[in-house]
């Protein structure tokens, strides 16, 4: 019997860059690196189900080894996140280590550690970008999903950074049904701190799957968002995450392509490499940086990534007139809503996603990640969106019985 190796399509010579990207790069353009699953917050829509530290997280020496490798591979910058990356005691050391090795860092934080002194330190450091997460332009909207006090923490950090003269701070917003009407308010808030607004798409990843039905933008909101991005896109970052909206008509600026395993990936806190930050699931696990050959071998030789590095040729979407605009949308959004990966995105703006969601039969079980680092006990300022009673910020602020359920 002769083994027949599956043949993969050959990379074309020349042509559009997007067509080249479909076949992957020798190293990621940038990658997301989550340093810890530990987080002081318990956001209802956390993409990585963070909360508690994982005992297997990379040590300082191992993290330095990853940075050395990224330098060798000429990965010029990483998006660092978590969990809350700044709660790692070696965070500031790793930041300096990366910058010293030609790996620029953009890190996402809820702002908990960004004191005046840290803000001044960051303002003095070249090659670092800070991104403050905020999911409401008002405390009311933000705190319902991110937790009581989190708006105040984020805006205090923004004020400290602005005061220290930090340039190009980003305010990063996940667009939800609750905040989609606040885009102008977000822009105004961001401008008031001399910062730059970044809007990204809400995906049903991690705990996001639990609240996706309630929080993902409606079709009307998607249309408004698309128009808003066309009008304001020059000054607003999106991480190219809204490419599914391009099927409304004119393409949005940026890379209108799923970059998972092709030009981006995720290194999680224990060193596992996934195709994308929104795909923490065994199905998208390519390897671990601790294995022989490290990250480079995973990126360059994983079977999973090889599979992802070819253009989609089959499935319902390839027959759609808008396929070249949206390329079928977001892989993670399809996967975690139980839809086939070669079919429409659940938020397909042509309406095919809604049809596909409705057509799932009753036996469809949506995939769940094998990982969950969510806090198991009550969290200070716990979000109230799910209708649970909030835990007061300080339990004895008013009376010893404040917040206690006496029923």
């Amino acid at each position, binding site marked *: 019997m002769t083994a027949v190796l599956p043949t993969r399509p050959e*990379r074309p*010579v*020349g042509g559009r*860059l*997007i067509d*080249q990207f479909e*076949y992957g*790069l*020798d*190293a990621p*353009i*940038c990658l997301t690196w989550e340093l810890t699953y530990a987080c002081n917050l318990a956001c209802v829509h956390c993409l990585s189900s963070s909360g508690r530290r994982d005992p297997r997280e990379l040590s300082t020496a191992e993290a330095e080894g990853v940075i050395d490798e990224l330098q060798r591979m*000429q990965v*010029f*910058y990483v998006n660092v996140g978590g969990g809350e990356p700044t709660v790692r005691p070696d965070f500031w050391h790793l930041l300096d280590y990366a910058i010293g090795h*030609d790996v*620029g860092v*953009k890190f996402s934080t809820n702002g908990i550690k960004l004191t005046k002194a840290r803000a001044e330190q960051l303002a003095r450091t070249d*090659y670092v*970008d800070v991104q403050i997460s905020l999911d409401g332009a008002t405390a009311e909207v933000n705190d319902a999903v991110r937790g009581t006090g989190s708006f105040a923490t984020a805006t205090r950090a923004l004020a400290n950074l602005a005061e220290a003269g930090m*340039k*190009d701070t*980003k305010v990063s917003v996940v667009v939800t049904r609750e905040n989609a009407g606040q885009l102008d308010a977000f822009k105004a808030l961001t401008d008031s701190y001399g910062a730059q607004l970044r809007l990204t798409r809400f995906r049903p990843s991690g705990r996001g799957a639990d609240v996706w039905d309630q929080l993902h933008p409606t079709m009307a909101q998607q249309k408004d968002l698309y128009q808003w991005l066309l009008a304001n896109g020059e000054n607003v*970052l*999106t*991480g*190219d995450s809204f490419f599914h909206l391009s099927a409304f008509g004119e393409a949005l600026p*940026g*890379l209108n392509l799923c970059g998972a395993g092709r*030009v981006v990936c995720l290194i999680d806190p224990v060193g596992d490499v996934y195709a994308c930050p929104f795909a923490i699931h065994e199905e998208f696990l390519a390897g671990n940086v601790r294995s022989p050959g490290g990250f480079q071998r995973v990126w360059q030789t994983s079977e999973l990534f090889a599979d992802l590095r070819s253009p989609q040729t089959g499935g319902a979407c390839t027959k759609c007139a808008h396929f070249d605009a949206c390329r079928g949308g977001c892989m993670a959004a399809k996967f975690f809503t139980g839809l086939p990966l070669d079919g429409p995105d659940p938020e397909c703006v042509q309406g095919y996603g809604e049809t596909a969601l409705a057509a799932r039969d009753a036996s469809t079980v949506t995939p769940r990640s094998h990982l969950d680092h969510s806090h198991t006990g009550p969290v200070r300022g716990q979000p109230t969106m799910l209708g649970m009673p909030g835990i007061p910020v300080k339990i004895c602020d008013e009376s010893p019985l404040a917040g206690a359920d006496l029923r």
Partner: protein
Amino acid sequence: MRGVLIDGAAVASPAAPAAGESAPFDPDLPWQRARSVALRPEPFGALVYHFGNRKLSFLKSKLLVSVVESLADHPSATATLVACGVPEAQRGAYVKALADLVRSQMIEARAPLPPTARRLPAGPCSGAGLEEL
């Protein structure tokens, strides 16, 4: 910037301030890859990264990569194109691509070296090799 040979800003860089004013491109002067720029080889050409302004650009031809890398070895950009074997019919497109790279500060003017002090290293563009690398 989007063209046949170069594609720039296709992917948002964390901070990409607008390029400052720079000298216009004269192909008869000596040029070099900017000192704060790194080229990362890719199957289709190269990724170009500027550590100063953090701009990302893509060279979509391996021949153009060779040209950019060997600018410093030749007395002028025109001489580099000849040495790298860029076909006559494509020289205009290459000059335009180099001008774009000057505008985005990926290549910079170089002080001419005294002619006697130079020896060209053996490299992709050192011979009369016409093969596309």
